[in-house]
């Protein structure tokens, strides 16, 4: 009976000693490594040497103003040394996002926001930058050259994009975060927030932005990462860092570990308390209503407090609308698995920005959708680079009721994957901005999804012939209300004619940067006459827009709220005055780089039509 026990004790003692020795050995090895690195860098005190790096490469981003196959106004301009700074103005050499202000939330294509968004989540766009050498960051400088103030969060990643061996768990640490601020001057500035110290070296920095308070597009020129090669060794500092880390780790694991915590709780021999005090007096629905104001992590924390709340917090009715976008850095396979039983009734699911760098696997995503997809009406997957053809196939099979699908900036999704979307016959909204969708796939989608109301095809570079696409829309998509053809390379007056006569309900049309449209063919006049419901019309950078087009708009589209005619030399102040007089609802008018409309005219129009925001950008 007794012999095994001493044996075990002896064994465990050996094991303990072994562990101690191993730890000691790894420690010395680590020191050796450090020493070697110090010698290599030829610096006596590497701790104090601050490395200053400009971004080497732009790895990923959610949107940009520029074209996919050019440099002007694209996110790729954030790499390298500044091109414009310290000058201010609207320059091609900078990085510009697709939207600003609240204009895109006020137009007919706007989507309803998700409830339960945590109050500290402001991010609308992001860009990820890789630097040459991993450092412990001491400062991050963002050179903003036009309408600054949009950066709301800066994060650092533990994964090195230039290294083969990646850490098992990819960690994202917030270096700085704040609510968006209104900066009154559009002038250039160097933004240097006070950042938190982190306990790992990084060469992958992510900026998250919110342009909602800005008067115009923000333009970023460069990002500078200051840092030291060795971890700052000040004893006080280190201990503080480790404490912080522990906190953060707990925070990070809270969600994943909750499952087993809950199990422990239920397993413990708690004396079954039958009463819940006053909570017993509250109706079930009322408690549910109160809980509906909690964010998802709070809900998960609450479920650990007692059986009653556990029951409430697991109620699938709490997860009808679920946005996991604010927690993109922490959502992984385990989290999805953990949420799965609670999400069987989910109708709106937002997984945008999640799952990158291998955190969500195709199999876990598929398992989740197979269980939770049947009621799904809206699925947001923007920038989901884990998605592949299988995922789209699963969506098409599991989410038969799906009405809204957002795949914007899923630029790694292969073209054949889009064929599966045609099986979703109930689709009302489809966002394919910056994807590789091809003509055949899109034609079959248009053919079978006759309920489509909102379609975004901005910057779809793989499309062969937009005229064919437009004529299919005119023939099949009678319910189309909004259409985004931003930067489509080859639509002509023929496509526009089919579209205008086939989709009379169109309220919003974005034809920005469509260089093949010529006003002399009468295409814009036709649009104005056939689409009296137009509320938003973007004719950005179409050099041929002229006075007669503006007059047609003034005569026919009196509901117009937003108009962008940036960059035409052929519109005069007189026609604009006519437009402003007849379109009483007009609130946004972009006349930047219209050579006949100078600042004096803008001032005068502003004085006469104070309800209209007239935008006039400048380069100098």
């Amino acid at each position, binding site marked *: 009976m007794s012999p095994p026990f001493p044996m075990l004790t002896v064994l465990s003692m050996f094991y303990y000693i072994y562990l101690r020795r191993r730890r000691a050995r790894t420690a010395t090895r680590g020191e050796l490594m450090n020493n070697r690195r110090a010698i290599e860098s030829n610096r006596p005190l590497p701790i104090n040497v601050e490395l200053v790096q400009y971004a080497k490469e732009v790895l990923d981003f959610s949107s940009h103003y520029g*074209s996919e196959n050019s*440099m002007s106004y694209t996110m790729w301009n954030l790499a390298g040394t500044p*091109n414009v700074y310290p000058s201010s103005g609207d320059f091609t050499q900078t990085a510009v996002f697709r939207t600003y202000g609240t204009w895109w939330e006020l137009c007919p294509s706007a989507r309803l926001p998700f409830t339960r968004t945590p109050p500290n989540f402001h991010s609308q766009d992001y860009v990820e930058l890789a630097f040459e050498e991993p450092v412990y960051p001491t400062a991050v400088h963002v050179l903003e050259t036009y309408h600054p103030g949009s950066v709301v969060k800066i994060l650092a990643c533990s994964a090195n994009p230039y290294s083969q061996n990646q850490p098992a768990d990819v960690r994202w640490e917030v270096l700085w975060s704040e609510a968006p601020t209104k900066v009154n001057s559009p002038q250039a500035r160097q933004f240097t927030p006070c950042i938190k110290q982190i306990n790992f070296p990084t060469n992958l920095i992510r900026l998250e932005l919110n342009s909602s308070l800005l008067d115009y597009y923000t333009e970023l020129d460069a990002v500078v990462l200051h840092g030291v090669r060795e971890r700052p060794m000040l004893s006080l500092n280190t201990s503080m860092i480790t404490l912080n880390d522990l906190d953060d780790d707990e925070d990070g694991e809270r969600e994943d570990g909750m499952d087993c915590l809950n199990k422990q709780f239920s397993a413990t021999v708690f004396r079954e308390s039958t009463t819940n005090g006053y909570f017993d007096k509250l109706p079930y629905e009322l408690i549910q209503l109160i809980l509906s104001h909690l964010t998802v992590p709070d809900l998960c924390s609450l479920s650990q407090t007692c059986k009653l709340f556990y029951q409430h917090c697991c109620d699938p009715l709490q997860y009808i609308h679920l946005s996991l976008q604010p927690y993109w850095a922490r959502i992984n396979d385990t989290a999805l698995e953990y949420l799965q039983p609670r999400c069987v009734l989910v109708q709106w699911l937002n997984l945008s920005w999640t799952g990158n760098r291998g955190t969500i696997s195709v199999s876990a995503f598929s398992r989740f959708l197979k269980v939770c997809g049947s009621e799904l009406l809206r699925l947001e997957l923007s920038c989901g680079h884990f998605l592949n053809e299988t995922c789209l196939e699963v969506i098409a099979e599991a989410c038969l009721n799906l009405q809204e699908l957002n795949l914007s900036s899923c630029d790694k999704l292969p073209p054949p994957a889009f064929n599966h979307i045609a099986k979703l016959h109930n689709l009302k909204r489809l966002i394919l901005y910056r994807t590789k969708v091809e003509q055949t796939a899109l034609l079959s989608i248009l053919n079978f999804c006759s309920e489509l109301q909102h379609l975004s095809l901005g910057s779809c570079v793989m499309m062969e012939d937009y005229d064919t696409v437009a004529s299919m829309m005119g023939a099949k998509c009678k319910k189309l209300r909004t259409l985004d053809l931003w930067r489509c390379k080859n639509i002509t007056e023929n496509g526009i004619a089919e579209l205008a006569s086939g989709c009379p309900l169109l309220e919003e049309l974005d034809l920005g940067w469509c260089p093949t449209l010529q006003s002399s063919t009468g295409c814009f006049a036709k649009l104005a006459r056939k689409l009296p419901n137009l509320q938003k019309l973007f004719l950005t950078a179409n050099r041929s827009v002229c006075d007669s087009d503006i007059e047609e708009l003034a005569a026919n589209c009196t509901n117009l709220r937003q108009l962008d005619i940036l960059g035409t030399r*052929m519109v005069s102040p007189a026609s604009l005055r006519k437009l402003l007089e007849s379109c009483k609802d007009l609130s946004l008018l972009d006349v930047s780089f219209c050579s006949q409309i100078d600042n004096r005219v803008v001032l005068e129009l502003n004085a006469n039509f104070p309800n209209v925001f007239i935008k006039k950008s400048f380069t100098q």
Partner: protein
Amino acid sequence: MFSVLSYGRLVARAVLGGLSQTDSRDYSLVTASCGFGKDFRKGILKKGMCYGDDACFVARHRSADVLGVADGVGGWRDYGVDPSQFSGTLMRTCERLVKEGRFVPSNPVGILTASYCELLQNKVPLLGSSTACIVVLDRTSHRLHTANLGDSGFLVVRGGEVVHRSDEQQHYFNTPFQLSIAPPEAEGVVFSDSPDAADSTTFDVQLGDIILTATDGLFDNMPDYMILQELKKLKNSNYESIQQTARSIAEQAHELAYDPNYMSPFAQFACDNGLNVRGGKPDDITVLLSIVAEYTD
């Protein structure tokens, strides 16, 4: 007889080819620039390198040295457009494309095409047109890749002789091929050639080769023998002496341009076309003078 000659040439070429292959050193271009604006505004005036309506750039990247000149077409002044804006932006964009490595050394036409596309991507509605000439030296292969659209051009001089030169492209007398962005109402009226129409050549260079890239302001006023005479004075390949030679060439061309009795190549050509013209051709002059040297960091 002919076959023997061509055979001999083949052998010579093979030997030379073999030699150049064994030369594993990297080459680079040492380049100096000089120029004059038509109306006596000398030197660097506007943003970047502009002489009157001419513009030029010199840029380098890991694999190649690139330089280019562009001559803005002056007729746009009638539209109230500054012609140097087009040529200047074109060259600055080329420079940026090179610095960011968005080019292939063996495809200089690609640089021109990409740069022209970027001009169309500008929010500012640019107007204008320009000739352009791009010269790329691939450091490791020792090949000179060039693209030329219009009447700017380049010469490669070896041992006091012109061994390679660009072809002039003209629609008719004094109307060169040109890249252009026209206002919608003038579309079809203005000459607008595709960047793909550029004449593209490849040439193997040797150490010490002199490459002179210039706008028509030089070639219209100075015949080859005068240019070669000036180049003979160039003794070594340090930057100062190149700069000096570039300046003396540009100055001489500038003087000749305003000499009413001088029979310039331009006047010669005009006479051939049935126009009775004498004297130089007052024009903007841009000269980029480069020597192929061994690459040093």
